């Protein structure tokens, strides 16, 4: 089970926010009628909703190649210069000439500043397994990794749903209330199902992969397609028709293949093109079967997205209308 998906300080922040609003709801006599509480939960949910959408934004700015981080690129020469000087610092550390941690970090940061690479590299002192500290240089990652955003998405999404519930009192009477509460519930539940899938299914998929991973099966299938196409080109028309018929019906492949070989017109002695083609077809059926089984698991793992993504798009639209109408009127 991938528990990494749950380990985050965002859980604490989200829980604190929810606890704060719950305490507030207890302190007011009728939460759904208290204007300040309504506005507070509304803005709170909206802010959390924006953070939740931040995950999608973060993912797509990289996917589309428009992340501001791409413009932070520094020349390789500057990086090499910094690395050379950091290596010298490490030599001094190893020789015991530099021992004060604060001093080492100060020097390392000065090197990064002088080489003008501080935007892309940061330094940290780490205790190695052998004992002595090591000066480690690592990327700064200013926007934060997708995994971090993913966890924020998860916890703030749940918190936003709780706040939406407090805000509207889980009312389903008006169209807008039905849309907002219903869609929130739909998105949160599908999201939780998704998390459960992502946590448990990779192990199942890996176990099902045996000797052929899903990527290799896919590549192998495409390669066999090409080889079969080339093999078909080498045999005559009537034989091709017989084999294409065998290929179309994967059940009882061996039996049908043997029959097809007998039925095929006579060939010159030593011509094994038909046998080679049948071997390739057999291989493709095997790979196809394995690939299809793996794809079934993969599709199941991502089925929840069919509900979650359209639901989230509709919810965004409904929230936008709700906020605009509240501000307008």
């Amino acid at each position: 089970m991938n528990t990494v998906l749950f380990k985050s300080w965002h859980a604490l922040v989200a829980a604190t926010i929810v606890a704060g609003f719950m305490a507030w709801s207890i302190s007011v006599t009728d939460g759904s009628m208290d204007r300040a509480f309504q506005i507070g939960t509304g803005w709170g949910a909206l802010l959390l909703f924006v953070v939740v959408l931040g995950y999608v934004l973060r993912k797509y700015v990289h996917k589309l190649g428009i992340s501001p981080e791409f413009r932070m690129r520094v020349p390789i020469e500057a990086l090499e210069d910094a690395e050379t000087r950091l290596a010298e610092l490490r030599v001094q550390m190893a020789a015991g000439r530099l021992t004060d941690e604060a001093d080492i970090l100060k020097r390392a940061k000065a090197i990064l500043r002088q080489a003008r690479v501080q935007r892309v590299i940061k330094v940290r002192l780490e205790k190695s397994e052998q004992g002595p500290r090591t000066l480690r240089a690592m990327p700064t990652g200013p926007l934060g990794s997708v995994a971090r955003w993913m966890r924020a998405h998860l916890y703030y999404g749940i918190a936003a749903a709780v706040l939406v519930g407090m805000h509207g009192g889980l009312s389903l009477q008006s169209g807008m209330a039905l849309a907002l509460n219903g869609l929130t519930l739909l998105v949160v539940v599908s999201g939780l199902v998704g998390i459960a899938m992502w946590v448990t299914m990779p192990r199942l998929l890996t176990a099902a992969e045996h000797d052929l991973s899903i990527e290799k099966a896919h590549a192998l299938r495409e390669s066999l397609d090409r080889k079969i196409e080339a093999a078909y080109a080498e045999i005559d028309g009537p034989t091709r028709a017989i084999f294409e018929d065998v290929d179309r019906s994967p059940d009882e492949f061996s039996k049908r293949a043997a029959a097809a070989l007998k039925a095929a017109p006579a060939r010159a002695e030593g011509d094994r093109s038909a046998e080679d083609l049948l071997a390739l077809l057999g291989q493709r059926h095997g790979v196809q079967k394995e690939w299809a089984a793996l794809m079934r698991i993969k599709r199941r793992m991502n089925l929840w997205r069919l509900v979650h993504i359209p639901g989230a798009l509709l919810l965004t639209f409904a929230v936008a209308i709700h906020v605009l109408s509240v501000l307008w009127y």
Partner: protein
Amino acid sequence: MSELPSEVFELPLLADLTKKQKSLLEDEAYMEVAPAGSVFAHQGEFTGRFCIVLEGGVGAYREEDGVTENLGVYGAGSWIGELSALSNQPELATLRADARCVLLVIEPPLFKQLYRKHGSARSRFQDLVDATYRERSLAIHLRVAPVFRGLPSSKLKLLGREAQLIDVADGDVVASEQDQADALFLVRTGAVKCSATSTRGHERIVSYHMANSSFGERCLTGNRTWPGTYTAIAPTSLIKITEEVFQETLASDAQVLERLRATADLMVAGEETSSTSTGGSVIDIVRPRRPASDQLEIMVGRQSVKGGEALVIDLHRCIRCNACVESCVSVHEDRVPRLSKTGTRVSAGLTLATSCYNCDVPECMMACEYGAIRRDVKGQINFVWDNCVGCQACTTACPYGVISMTPPPAAAGERPRYKRHWFLQTIPFLGKYFEGLRPTGEATPPDDENPLGGLRGDPVKGKAVKCDLCAGLPFEACVYNCPTEAIGRMNPEKLFVDNDD
């Protein structure tokens, strides 16, 4: 490449070359003019170049403890860079042209051709280079061995004078299990495997020793035997210092000998502890569902395990969303992914992604005749775009198939510009229906013959590319964009920790 003057072949170092070697030299070596005062190699830099001074003089300056020492001035007929070329070591000193110099530059692949033995006999080139190596570099090279760290240069010089330089062939046994440990070895090039017989009676890998790694410190610690059988797993060059040499050379300095013994004691104690634990320097095979040892053998044989951290995918976390490959594509303007998930499965839940290992002995670098591949100070292998001619020698040489070719540039001297993904293509589930709108010039998708995609094998030549760890950017795209933290960098040695014995 300029034509070499005939006097070059009269130099003592080159006079006895074979006809074939001379022809190679003529074809591949080149002359370089260094103006007075110019620095052409910095201390600590990986160059791998071997240079013969034809005119002028080169000064070698080594900085140590804040003090710069002049190691000597090398005039016409002398040579520099033998340690770098032999052992892939960083330059020991900064090399500066004290006067205008003309140098004959020999790149690593050619150096290896010239240094090669002719049958069983050593060549004059080999003898002369080794003699210089022994005189100038051996003492400094010995410091690589942990046991010698901090030993005064004078003592190292004494040891170096008596050390033997030996060559062993692939498969040769250097020392046998249970024999008396009688010498300390330092690997110059190649690799040595130490294997012991386990309690169950099968061979168990205790450790691997690659270039600049030492073994046999136990010879200093009294009556001890070898912990396993040491076998060369590639043609290997070793420095051997016998126990007698230690005794004789350092006999007059009991304090130094005592210090060496104390350090060796500590190292042997550590070795023995780690050989019974699952961590440390012991590399063994874990939960092998397929012969992972073969992969390790290849990786170690090619010294990849020492190169850098490998890209590993935890399949129990990976949701197969392909974000790693897609993000790799988005940061590279040629849109050729530098990694493929169709790597080698090393255990039930871990896959070694097909991505550059920055091998310690990079075969791509050795194969490149155009100086387009170099190693930076971090040990990372980088491609120099402008020098690459698209000959594909590196793609053939790479044992892991991690080098791809980009599409050719639109016009000579221009880098290709490609459109990024269309927004429509990024929509979940529906994106594939817009694939037909793929911009022209985009790389071909990966397949089993070419797991990285790209245009390998395409008749029109492009440029060679491989994982550059997103150099210059504040992130490593594949790791940074994985939603489940399934992909990460890991020391390959840790992949092969024994749970078996």
